[in-house]
């Protein structure tokens, strides 16, 4: 009577607040000698959007694939609504929907045929499969294109169909792996609306993204992942305040000035400034913009010439610079990460 035990288990969790939709402990995945995922811990409450933020190659997709039973972990455990992703994979698959970076739909079939196929596979009758397909096509604005083969679909249409296919069984948990990468701004906004609608209906969403603003817009909590590890976790506000509300970007005429300028900037702002890799720029978090004039005055007094100046809201790059001390660039294989302890 494993079903009863499981029900009991999720009830106990519910007693402590919302039950956990995802619970990962020290997940590890090796590709050869490269540790693509290197001990990831995650706890995602049911009914929330959780953002997994990180650059290309950080291990986001690998983590999602392990949680979605598509990849077997080399270490650690993960549970989806209390079910083990390895030992109870068949059960987990009934509770999840997966939408990947590339469209996991059949190119040779039409949109309608694709949705019908997945509906039939999920055990719907021919009639129910058709109705569900019609409803989803309508919801995603694909009704007019329903009888066209996917070869003729645009990237945005494919993504929408892909997401529609993940919703046929109304799974309580949906994995969205970079759902808006490569989409134009309008389609991206549509995608965001769709994701918000999902959550309103009680669906839990695990979203991976390279964009801080996307995680900021959608996610209630964010884990920043880099080189296979979670390096920071919290609400978007917590993360942003850890890097400063905005950051000051300074470019200097003379690279030799950078070390001296760094001391001045750090003194004036009371925060650590980071030189950029090419050595002509400085980036420093700004918690109080009223101090900015002091920085400029002090630099002028020291005779340091500034060629470019800007104040920017935090980008993923700054989050990364602040958290890891390196840029948000794709991880190179076998390189040892100088990762700071978890924030």
């Amino acid at each position, binding site marked *: 009577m494993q*079903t009863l035990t499981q029900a009991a288990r999720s009830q106990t969790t519910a007693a402590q607040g919302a039950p956990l939709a995802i619970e990962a402990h020290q997940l590890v995945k090796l590709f050869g000698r490269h540790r693509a995922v290197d001990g990831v811990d995650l706890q995602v409450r049911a009914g929330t959007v959780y953002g997994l933020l990180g650059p290309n190659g950080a291990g986001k997709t690998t983590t999602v694939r392990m949680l979605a039973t*598509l990849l077997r972990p080399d270490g650690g455990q993960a549970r989806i609504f209390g079910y083990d992703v390895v030992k109870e994979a068949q059960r987990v698959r009934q509770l999840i929907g997966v939408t990947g970076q590339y469209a996991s739909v059949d190119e040779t079939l039409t949109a309608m045929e694709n949705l019908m196929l997945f509906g039939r596979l999920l055990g719907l009758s021919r009639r129910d499969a058709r109705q569900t397909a019609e409803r989803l096509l309508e919801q995603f604005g694909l009704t007019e294109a329903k009888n066209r083969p996917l070869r003729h679909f645009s990237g945005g249409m494919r993504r929408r169909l892909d997401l529609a296919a993940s919703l046929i069984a109304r799974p309580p948990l949906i994995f969205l792996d970079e759902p808006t990468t490569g989409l134009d701004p309008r389609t991206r906004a549509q995608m965001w609306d769709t994701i918000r609608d999902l959550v309103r209906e009680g669906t839990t969403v695990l979203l991976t993204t390279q964009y801080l603003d996307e995680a900021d817009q959608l996610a209630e909590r964010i884990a920043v992942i880099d080189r296979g590890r979670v390096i920071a976790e919290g609400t978007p506000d917590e993360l942003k305040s850890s890097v400063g509300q905005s950051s000051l970007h300074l470019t200097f005429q003379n690279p030799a000035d950078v070390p001296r300028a760094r001391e001045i900037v750090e003194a004036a702002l009371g925060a650590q400034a980071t030189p950029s890799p090419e050595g002509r720029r400085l980036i420093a978090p700004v918690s109080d913009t009223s101090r900015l004039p002091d920085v400029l005055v002090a630099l002028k007094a020291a005779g340091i010439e500034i060629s470019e100046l800007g104040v920017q809201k935090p980008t993923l790059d700054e989050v990364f610079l602040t958290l890891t001390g390196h840029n948000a660039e794709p991880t190179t294989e076998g390189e040892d990460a100088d990762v700071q302890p978890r924030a």
Partner: protein
Amino acid sequence: MSNRALDTVPARVSATSTLSQSLTMAYRGLLKVRRTPEQLFDVTVQPIIFTLMFTYIFGGAVSGNPQNYLPLVIPGILVQTVITASVVTGVQLREDMDKGVFDRFRSLPIARIAPLAGALIADTVRYLIATLLTFAVGFIMGWRPQGGAFHVVLAGLLVIVCAFALSWIFAFFGVIARTATSVQGISMLILFPLTFLSNAYVPVNTMPKWLQAFVNINPLSHLIAAVRDLANRGLVTSDIAISLAGAVILMLVFAPLAVRMYMRKV
């Protein structure tokens, strides 16, 4: 809009669901064939070319004239063509598995065997086309099977069933190989000796003794003999039993192997 209840998730897929999921996947295979009819090139052209070619090249030498050669060669070509078509099943499966849609199949709560079984079931249509065309070309060239229509149909079905069983071997290669070309390569290496070192084109007693030993244990020789006896003479021989037993054994070995490797490969 309520989500699926969390406490009603069964641990495994029932046998009836497995069957219906496999048939749904087979339906997908047929839709694909309809969209890309060029996939049928091999099963339409090969029966015509091979039948014409082999009959006129070897007919005189083996049977005195092409006409007398037909009862011997048509079953041989039939088996070779259909079995070769089953190799393509493995190659196409490999190509298909590299596409994104297979990721979705893997993440769905469906029987693990369904995507494989579906592809293989859909391909029986290819075998059917090859069978019909081979018989038709033979008939046009003057082959008059004495076993009668019923036995000819039976012979065709026997070949299709055996090809389906054999296609699990190539599905297994399809699953473990890295590229579609390597599936083609490995499969052809197995297929050529099997089809040519058989009784398909020449009487076995013209071969050296050591070769006869191999030819006589070659399962395809039994299948070809069974088809000849059925179609040409309306005889139900022990070769049918041997062919079917071989088919079942192959399937029992390779279907679980293919599914296991498929599940492990991500």
